[in-house]
């Protein structure tokens, strides 16, 4: 994929009584090479997740333009729905549907969005469930699964529809170290299979391993960006240098 951001802005009405607004993204600009995976890092509240929601077609930016492989992201509801059907998104809080079993969570998009028959859908999810060691948990509801299992099911739910790009928003931030490892392992495997990824993470070592390019999002802007090796060796700005020092320490 080749991602281009031009002056992307995002404003939200502020929650207080003053009816003001908060500018979370203040003109993000980025041009990537033709890469398989992009990792977004940066301090909390800097705008990483806001940017990812825009890329995933969940939110519309208040200004600017985003394009993947030369095609601008649609802004109209129908166009964005079509985009969301082509890509996959994984959230920090898993957001599995608690009233459905793990299996039904996987079948829902296949049957209701991609119009597979139930038997075709079952066939499609069987192999990945087994491969990622989740077959034994297929008939459990999310409330009965561990955090790591929930997140792996959530990744599968995004994956079974064969998305062209997988967006992951801090997929391990809610997990303890052991579960973090099992989820990261799964993501690494997807990367090795050639899956295109955009990942927001605080796991710097993991970012180094899976990223083709890294972008540092801070204070609503892309403050630094580049291929992995150079990015870590010669931090482009003092703030990035300080950030890396803090998180890698």
């Amino acid at each position, binding site marked *: 994929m080749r991602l281009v951001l031009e002056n992307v802005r995002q404003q939200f009405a502020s929650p207080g009584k003053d009816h003001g607004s908060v500018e979370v993204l203040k003109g993000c600009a980025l041009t990537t090479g033709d890469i398989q995976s992009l990792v977004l890092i940066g301090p909390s509240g800097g705008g990483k997740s806001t940017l990812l929601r825009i890329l*995933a077609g*969940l939110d519309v930016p208040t200004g600017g333009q985003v394009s993947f492989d030369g095609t601008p992201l649609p802004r109209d509801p129908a166009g964005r*729905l079509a985009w*969301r*059907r082509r890509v*996959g*998104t994984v*959230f920090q*809080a898993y*957001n*599995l*549907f*608690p*009233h459905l079993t793990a299996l039904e969570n996987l079948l*829902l*998009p296949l049957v*209701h*969005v*991609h119009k597979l028959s139930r038997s075709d859908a079952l066939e499609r999810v069987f192999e990945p469930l087994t491969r990622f060691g989740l077959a034994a948990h297929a008939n459990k*509801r999310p*409330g*009965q699964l561990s955090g790591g299992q929930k997140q792996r099911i959530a990744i599968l*739910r*995004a994956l079974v*529809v064969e998305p062209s790009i997988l967006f992951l928003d801090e997929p391990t931030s809610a997990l303890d170290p052991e579960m973090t490892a099992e989820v990261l392992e799964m993501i690494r495997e997807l990367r090795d299979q050639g899956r295109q990824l955009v990942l927001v993470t605080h796991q710097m070592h993991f970012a180094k391993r899976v990223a083709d390019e890294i972008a540092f999002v801070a204070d609503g802007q892309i403050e630094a960006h580049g291929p992995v090796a150079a990015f870590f060796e010669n931090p482009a700005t003092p703030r990035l240098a300080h950030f890396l020092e803090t998180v890698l320490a």
Partner: protein
Amino acid sequence: MNARFVQRFAAHAAVTMLFTGLVWLAASRVDYEWNWAGVWEYREMFLKGWLATVLISVSALVGSGVIGVVGAVCLQSRNLLLEAVVRVYVELIRGTPLLVQLLIGFYLVATAVGLENRYVAGVVILSLFSGAYMVEIFRGGLAAIPRGQHDAAAAIGLSRWQAFWLVILPQAARIVLPPVAGQLASLIKDSSLLSVIAISEFTLAAQEVNSFTYSSLESYLPLAVGYLMLTLPLSWTAGVLERRFHYES
């Protein structure tokens, strides 16, 4: 059937018998000449009235359920006009007695629009009355669904309608089940007020039997039992559904 179930059943039976005994004691202490034979002659009138109450309640139950869901969705639609219509409706209905609504609704509104069938008018007014409370119950249920569920539904590519039908409503239904069951029990009892617009339902039947036989207690005790025959199964069914829909969230 486990021990806990048996214990609970025994406790309920004991308390029920205690209450029945108290009523019995009270009845035996008052100087009252019982005349069950006179009332028994009018048993068919009771039965017809009871059936009318069942029919009216079931119709209004469906009506108020539909009003509740549609009203709650309107409140979430962010359409100012729809929101205003529903808000004013809910406040007007909840702020005035059902008796007044029945009299105005039947003698003024129904007559003005040429609705002469008092049963239809009664069901419509009762649905509107109970629907106002249902709107609030469903609004609360919908608001209790976390934003992440809406995000996940959008992310897997469900249309807004599919997201509501497959993801939001089933979860909201579980939340609103107990208050809805309570509201439906109220609805059944409130249908007794339809007697003021001369609808031959259960309460009117009891009033008429009383005026024929001058046996007020013998007329009204069956009335209490008849309403319990409707409201108790409703509570039991709600309890069963609540357990069936239960999941850890």
